[in-house]
């Protein structure tokens, strides 16, 4: 069988792709699109990217983006003031900083137990976990096989949607956030163990 090249694709398939994206209420993954369009996933991926570019170039008020593992039509960010005037109900209530920090820990350390989160934050995250779960940002993904069978938490596709990223890999690597030498030094100094007399003279030789 001859390999299908995106350039051979009938205009109808592209139009059908647009139609499907228009009726989807969640990001649609390429596999499902490929199945409905009866095209190889590689072709569909190319078509989607090409469509996204053409919307950008034509200056449409909408864009096609890959988010939470699928493609979705959404409004262009520059037009948010108009859209917000129209969509009055859509405002999400803000996520508190406590919730954000807990969410950050879960995103990078999943699956993770409440106990482990507490060890990092120094605060029992129980009520925050309940809020995040109620919002659908995290879910119980498994149980620890240790003696306590602790519930382990992970993030959901809705979390990725809210962040506007396609997958967890699109989050900046955690190594970008490791405190730099200055911070480590400041913390070390703040928690100095060695008697003052010895360090007072020792800090000139770095």
């Amino acid at each position: 069988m001859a390999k299908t090249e995106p350039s051979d694709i009938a205009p109808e398939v592209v139009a059908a792709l647009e139609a499907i994206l228009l009726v989807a209420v969640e990001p649609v993954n390429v596999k499902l699109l490929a199945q409905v369009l009866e095209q190889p996933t590689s072709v569909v991926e190319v078509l989607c990217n090409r469509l996204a570019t053409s919307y950008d170039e034509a200056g449409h008020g909408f864009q096609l983006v890959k988010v939470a593992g699928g493609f979705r039509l959404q409004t262009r960010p520059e037009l948010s003031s108009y859209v917000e005037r129209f969509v009055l109900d859509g405002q999400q209530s803000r996520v508190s900083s406590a919730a954000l920090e807990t969410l950050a820990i879960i995103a990078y350390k999943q699956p993770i137990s409440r106990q482990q989160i507490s060890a990092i934050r120094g605060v029992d995250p129980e009520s925050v976990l309940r809020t995040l779960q109620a919002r659908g940002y995290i879910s119980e993904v498994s149980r620890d096989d240790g003696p306590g069978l602790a519930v382990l938490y992970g993030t959901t596709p809705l979390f990725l949607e809210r962040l506007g990223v396609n997958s967890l890999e699109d989050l900046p690597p955690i190594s970008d956030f490791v405190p730099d030498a200055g911070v480590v030094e400041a913390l070390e100094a703040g928690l100095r163990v060695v008697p003052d007399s010895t360090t007072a003279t020792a800090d000139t030789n770095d």
Partner: protein
Amino acid sequence: MPYAVTTPVFEGPFDLLLHLILQEEVDIHEVSLSRIIEAYLAELERMTEMDLEVATEFLLIAATLIDLKARRLLPTRDDGELDEELALWEERDLLLARLLDCKTFKDVASVMHDLIERAELTHPRLAGPDERFAAVMPDLLEGVSPRRLQRAFLRATEPKGPVSIDLFHVAPIRASVAEALEFLVGQLPSLGRVSFRQLIAGVTDRIEVVVRFLAILELFKQGRVDLDQAERFGDITVTWNNNPDGADLAPIDNYDG
């Protein structure tokens, strides 16, 4: 019913400690620790509506800080209570590791905040297929009777009781010194001389690095290894002591992660 565990200003004891050390820029060469302790105690006093668990955490850390400070004020003896000093370093390193973790995720959280803000400028299409497709849509309500709908309503509106037994306090601590010891005793004899850096190769969790370090200190305490560090912040060389008195490892304290 849930209760709020936040104080108005600080979200937990690490938050406060980080703030004091990093933002207050207390004079770190002079009185840092005592200033920190003072502020800590003041914060503790300020927490009028005390949550027992949070207050306990605050107290625990305040106590650790006071301990650190107290020992700094004592003159060092050269013969040195080595065990005590090691214990002190252990405490400090654990605290430091937790503080660094806390700081890391605080910074991640602010990036996430920005991502969310940016994502909120766009709005997805949510209209779904129009009425022309109503007939094709699979009937989600197949088999749902009015009676079942009523039951669902009652279920949704009934007061929520506790749904599960809280196993928080028995959840396992992943990083245990005992396990790290077991690992090291398995590895070290065949390695002979090895750097600490090699021993933690592939370990990504900071707390695990700390725990492995504590295990090394424990082995040192028991005379099983010799340690050598050529320069400050330099790599530590660990040498397995081949002929100890043949005794089994002494029982060790467990440290909370």
